[in-house]
């Protein structure tokens, strides 16, 4: 889905709020949320792709104003309710107020019908895939051409894995793009590398 989470290259967010020795956690409840979602994954209540997608399905207005660990909490609670582990009513009764959850999921999909194997040096084009469900393809490389620089072992295909659809594991390729090709006349020159699943790629030459 072309969701609010797909932030790469978006403009207007302002300077990075950088501090030397910035911490990962600021409050004890953040540590608890981080542990609870990890525990749910470990316990098999949901997988990492379902978790990422549950966060992506948050109302965009909520996503933008929520802190990182509030987004994490919302994804965790949404999946616990969707999986039938807990009910929204119980959560709201215990919390004594509204417990915002993410919007329902749309359809996922299986692997691409034709997948090619690539090797370092191959030129590849990112397919023009527009899907309503989960996808790990940042919008800024869609339709762009880059060069394969590395291959990683096969992973579960996220577009299927986030939706409980059976699919084959597939490799990902580290693909090198020139920032100037991604945002012509609108970027700092650099080499931008993205981990791209095999189903998202086709040969360019």
């Amino acid at each position, binding site marked *: 889905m072309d969701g609010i989470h*797909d*932030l*790469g*290259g978006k*403009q207007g*967010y*302002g*300077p*990075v*709020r*950088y501090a*030397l020795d*910035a*911490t*990962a*956690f*600021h409050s004890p*409840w953040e*540590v*608890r*949320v*981080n*542990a*609870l979602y990890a*525990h749910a994954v*470990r316990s098999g209540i949901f997988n*990492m792709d379902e978790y*990422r997608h549950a966060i992506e399905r948050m109302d965009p207005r909520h996503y933008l104003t929520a*802190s*990182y*660990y509030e987004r994490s*909490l919302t994804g965790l*609670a949404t999946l*616990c309710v969707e999986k039938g582990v*807990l009910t929204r009513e119980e*959560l*709201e009764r*215990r*919390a*004594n*107020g*509204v*417990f915002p959850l993410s919007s329902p999921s749309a359809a996922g999909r299986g692997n691409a019908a034709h997948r090619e194997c690539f090797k370092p040096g191959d030129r590849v084009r990112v397919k023009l895939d527009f899907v309503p469900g989960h996808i790990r393809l940042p919008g*800024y490389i869609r339709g762009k051409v880059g060069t394969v620089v*590395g291959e*990683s*072992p096969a*992973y579960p295909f996220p577009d299927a894995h986030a939706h409980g659809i059976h699919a084959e594991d597939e490799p990902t390729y580290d693909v090198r793009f020139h*920032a100037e090709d*991604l945002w012509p006349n609108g*970027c*700092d020159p*650099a*080499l*931008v*590398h*993205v*981990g*791209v*699943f095999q189903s998202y790629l086709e040969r360019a030459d």
Partner: protein
Amino acid sequence: MNDTDRVVFRTATVEDRVDAIQAALDAKGLKASEAVEELGHKAQEEWIPQNGARIVAHAWMDPEFRKRLLANGREAAIEMGFPMPRHHRHLVVLENAPKLQNVICCTLCSCTAFTLIGLPPDWYKDLQYRSRVVRESRTVLRDMGLDLAPDVEIRVWDTTADTRYMVLPERPAHTQGWTEEQLAKIVTRDSLIGVARL
């Protein structure tokens, strides 16, 4: 307008929501509070940047280990006693050079090799870094205090799959003769992410 239309539904505070879900999971017998103890400890005490720092210092001291680290980061991390989670099936270590700076990010969420680098700092997960670092890398690094000469090439690595990345910073020239332990102490988390040099 009937009575129910006038009821104001207040969103529960985030702390109350966390309490609610932890208690609800406990009530289902899912041992949430035990997990909070165990995983909270790991996140704060075990998954720390000193792990990555020790790997870097070892790579600086031992050229054969450095080769193994660059060839297969995951195996080399295990060799140092730092196993990675099952879904982090691959660790790519990115070696800096005088004219090359590698930088990692996750534009879609917050993915990191957290068992080695530590849980990511707030700015790494914020909308600003995620939106800007792929497009305005040199400007963002300069704003963060790393003002690179124009002839230093920047390579940004967006963690969009389950491959994880860690930067291998350059060993500072003034550290000749130091022990591995001394070296590990100067390797910072931000240098492992690639937004700082040593």
